[in-house]
């Protein structure tokens, strides 16, 4: 009796496992198609010799060519003649946003979380207020103010905008992660005579490294994703970024689309590379389960 029951239970168990496997396979395929489709569409257009956007039903273009990629690489097409300069500008904006966000965010979260320890009235209220400003609501005043600050048509104006909107999320993540680092560490160091600067440099920064990697990536992605502030704040050709040039490209009805599609794919590479390079840090920084145990 008991043997029969257990074998029946085992078979139910087996069925359930099988259904589970099928279900997750179906879900995986569906997710994969949905998430990769726009990227695939871009690739098809970039590989087409004429830059046709029409989808003809071939899963892979019949005569794929890397002509468009070569055109972007060697700035061969008239529209792309400043591509690497623009890429450099975009990269400068992204890198500076990353560094400044990590710096300002870590200093601020050190003061709020490790020194005031959640007791600072005015400043923590200001910190919370920052979360609550929708990014694109400030474009117009920002544009007019940058003229007053004398920063209009400089890359620094865009960096300032990006940092402003990346810092609140940096603070949020740093505060969450900072709770996992025991305050007793700071206290012990202080009793041994360390100054706040030493605590920040020697204890806080090393222990927060995974979280800093996360906020750095987030800041870089913010900058790389951004279009409107760049479009509005930068005007001279030497200051143009890839995002601006791509958008003007698409405004033009008669361009062969394979060039912008190839440029878009190349533009999409740095964040993806960066993302995969530090994904362990991201897992540790956001997951932090191991840290708890």
């Amino acid at each position, binding site marked *: 009796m008991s043997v029969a029951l257990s074998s029946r239970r085992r078979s139910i168990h087996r069925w359930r496992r099988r259904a589970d496997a099928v279900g997750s396979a179906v879900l995986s395929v569906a997710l994969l198609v949905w998430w*990769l489709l726009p990227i695939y569409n871009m690739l098809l257009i970039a590989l087409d010799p004429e830059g046709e956007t029409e989808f003809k039903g071939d899963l892979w273009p019949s005569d794929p060519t890397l002509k468009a990629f070569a055109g972007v690489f060697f700035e061969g097409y008239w529209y792309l003649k400043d591509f690497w300069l623009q890429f450099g500008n975009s990269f400068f904006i992204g890198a500076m946003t990353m560094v400044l966000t990590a710096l300002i965010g870590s200093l601020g979260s050190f003061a709020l979380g490790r020194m005031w320890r959640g007791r600072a009235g005015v400043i923590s209220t200001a910190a919370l207020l920052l979360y609550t400003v929708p990014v694109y609501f400030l474009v*117009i005043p920002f544009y007019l103010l940058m003229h007053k600050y004398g920063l209009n048509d400089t890359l620094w104006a865009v960096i300032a905008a990006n940092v*402003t909107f990346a810092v609140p999320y940096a603070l949020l993540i740093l505060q969450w992660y900072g709770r996992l680092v025991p305050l007793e560490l700071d206290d012990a160091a202080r009793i041994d005579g360390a100054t706040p600067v030493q605590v920040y440099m020697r204890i806080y920064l090393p222990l927060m490294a995974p979280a800093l990697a996360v906020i750095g990536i987030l800041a870089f992605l913010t900058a790389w994703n951004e279009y409107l502030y760049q479009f509005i704040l930068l005007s001279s050709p030497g200051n143009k970024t890839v995002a601006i040039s791509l958008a003007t490209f698409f405004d033009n009805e008669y361009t062969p689309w394979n060039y912008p599609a190839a440029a878009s794919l190349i533009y999409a590479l740095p964040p993806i590379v960066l993302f995969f390079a530090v994904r362990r840090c991201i897992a540790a920084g956001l997951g932090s389960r191991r840290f708890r145990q």
Partner: protein
Amino acid sequence: MTATTVLDVGASSPGKRRSLWRYWRGNLKGSEFTWALAFSVPYIAVFLGFVAYPVFYGLWMGSDPALYSDVFSDVIYQDTVINTLVFVVLGVNLKLFLALLLSGVFMRPGWLTKVMLMLFVLPWAVPQLPAFISLHWMLNGEWGLLNNALWILGGIEGPSWLNERWTALGAAIASHLWKWTPFWTVILLAGRMSIPQDIYDAAKVDGATGLNRFLFVTFPLLANLYLVLTLLATIFLLGDFNTVFFVTGGGPNNETHLLATLGIRNAFDLARPDLGVAVVMTALPVLIPLVIILMRKLRTTEVQL
């Protein structure tokens, strides 16, 4: 508790002033306070220079009541308000609900899950602009990938998505989901991962499995985080510009604008910056209560991860 309050009220005025001063300094002594302030200076400077000042500048620009009669009488504006409501309500809730479900899927062990997660976060790493332009092409009614694939696979003639107001708005929402669901999934995944395993073990002993486990263990523990994320996502979506601008371009006939894109259109295409600011300002009656709730939530709950 009550006694202290009474004592505080009854204290002489210098004592009261000292306690207020102490509150402001966050109970830090002399040099400690100076250090803490020094660490916050860059942050405070960013706040004052790039948030507080632009906000007040914007308030000042949009302070003329005559502007608002212009805004409210604009037919495009009336459509825009409805679009923004639909976009925010559907966008936020679908996105977070999907993220909540998917974060559960990605909790499963195994290498396949890891690979899937890596592919899944790809849209998050792809810059918005190329992604949305690609989606714009895909959705073209005559030659886009979506309709042509529908025709080839099932002989279905898809609608011309971007030429009708509601399908265009739906396309914008779907594009937003495509781009941003991974981000919120990763955050909710982090939230799920930080729930200690012992709680699940205890629940298992008590017989909670499957749906019950989710309803009575996981969700109550995630509820606070979920609420905070909902508020953040709402604020974030209220100010979304890129999705609509690149996927629908505000068309057809300016029928799919959101407040953010309409503000930019008024300010730069119509060269009326004050009118642009006024459009955006009309979101304040909704935004301010959200901000107050969010600030309370963030301060009091300390987001128990």
